[in-house]
């Protein structure tokens, strides 16, 4: 079994077998991160460029650490300090980077499809690290890995995704992945933040949070983009937190063995109350730890030969 792709642009392009291969490879990579010497020589001489047109701490650092643990040379470019501010187009930036012969470019961009444009014009492999509201495949893969680690499987589990579904690339990639792997997906959130015809993706919309989290194995909270607040998707942050935030009383409606996830960064007290955020069933930091292993797996599978 091999990953017969040059790029990872979205979960939509992957088969269930390929997803399983990535998760299995990640579990071997996780062991490398637990060693005293957290480095193997696999990608010696390969060059990885992190090209980020949006702010990021977790994802960029995670890709950087993943590359370094595999002995690749990792270069970071963020839009604020690059020629983009001088007006260079994405395609020209890509071509200039290609001229320096990198093996992999990890791209985050506010416009959906930006990584696809680079993938069409460049020889290097491309990993989509988030393109607008389209996809964030590595997040979905690390979420799946974390669920599998905690629950032992994906098939047949019920996962509830809560929050701004419309603007969330994390939600979209997770829905694709979970459906492919045989999980049952519910979504919840203000009607204004759930796209019409969401059912066409094979998920159920449950407007009331307390109903949505009943008998679910996993709750995935999405970040409310406070910067969108002026667009009036809901009356106030406080009201959102009361209706769609997870607090200890709200969790009374969930199963005892539920696990709670969040792609970060968390708005403390909005999506999750501080008590819930610090509880042992909240596995946000496991997600972060597993992100490195999943990205190492993808680098090995895409450019390891």
């Amino acid at each position, binding site marked *: 079994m*091999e990953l017969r792709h040059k790029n990872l642009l979205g979960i939509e392009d992957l088969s269930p077998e390929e997803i399983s291969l990535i998760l*299995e490879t990640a579990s*071997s990579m996780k*062991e*490398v991160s637990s*060693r005293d*010497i957290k480095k193997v020589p696999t990608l010696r001489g390969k060059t990885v460029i992190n090209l980020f047109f949006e702010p990021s701490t977790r994802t960029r650092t995670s890709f950087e650490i993943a590359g370094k643990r595999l002995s690749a040379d990792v270069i970071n470019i963020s839009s604020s300090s690059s020629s983009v501010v001088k007006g260079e187009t994405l395609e020209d930036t890509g071509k200039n980077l290609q001229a320096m012969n990198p093996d992999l470019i990890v791209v985050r961009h506010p416009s959906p499809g930006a990584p696809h444009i680079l993938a069409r014009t460049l020889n290097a492999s491309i990993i989509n690290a988030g393109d607008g509201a389209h996809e964030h495949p590595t997040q979905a893969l690390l979420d799946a890995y974390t669920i599998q680690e905690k629950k032992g499987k994906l098939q047949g589990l019920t996962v509830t995704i809560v929050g701004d579904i419309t603007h969330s690339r994390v939600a979209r990639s997770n829905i694709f992945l979970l459906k492919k792997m045989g999980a049952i997906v519910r979504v919840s959130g203000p009607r204004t933040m759930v796209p019409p015809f969401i059912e066409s993706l094979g998920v159920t919309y449950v407007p009331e949070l307390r109903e949505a989290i009943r008998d679910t194995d996993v709750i995935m909270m999405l970040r409310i983009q406070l910067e969108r607040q002026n667009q009036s998707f809901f009356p106030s942050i406080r009201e959102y937190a009361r209706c769609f935030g997870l607090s200890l009383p709200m969790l009374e409606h969930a199963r005892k063995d539920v696990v709670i996830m969040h792609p970060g960064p968390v708005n403390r007290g909005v999506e999750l109350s501080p008590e819930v955020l610090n509880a042992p069933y909240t596995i946000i930091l496991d997600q972060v730890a597993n992100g490195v292993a999943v990205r190492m797996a993808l680098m090995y599978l895409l450019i390891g030969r």
Partner: protein
Amino acid sequence: MGKVMATRKVIMDRDDIDRTLNRIAHELWERNRGAEQFVFIGIRRRGVTIAHRLSKKLREFERVSIPVGALDITLYRDDLSEIASQPVLKKTEIPWPLNGKKVYLCDDVVYTGRTVRAALDSIHDLGRPEAIRLIVLIDRGHRELPIEPNYTGKYIATTKQELIEVMLEEDDGIDQVVLVQGL
């Protein structure tokens, strides 16, 4: 691929393999009696099986319990760009420190020596053992690196066109070593 022409000759059967491993276990114990600090590390996948069998034999013969670790050398290979299909990565499971230990590295076949080279590099990154010794069931010659086993089950003279297939009950459902000729 000329499959019609290939002939398969069984060169070791179940009893042969068992007798050989018995001999290696006895020899190893004789040379190491009293040395408490030794461990087996098998190279995935059949090297791990061989390591487990040797450990079991020592438990039966000498009532000692020698730990067994598993090493996946994929991330240390020097031929990832050359081989036809990318190997599926498996876990390395060595849950104890190697510093100061004597490591008995086990594999089914030694051929070019490149697998052993990768294993040595990998172990080197995991700790600093007092010594590393190599145990193989089959030595088929054609070394490309200065690497020699310390304990050899059987030496088989082969040509580079021939193939040695080691099959072990735990992995393949049967114990036998086959020489495939005329590929």
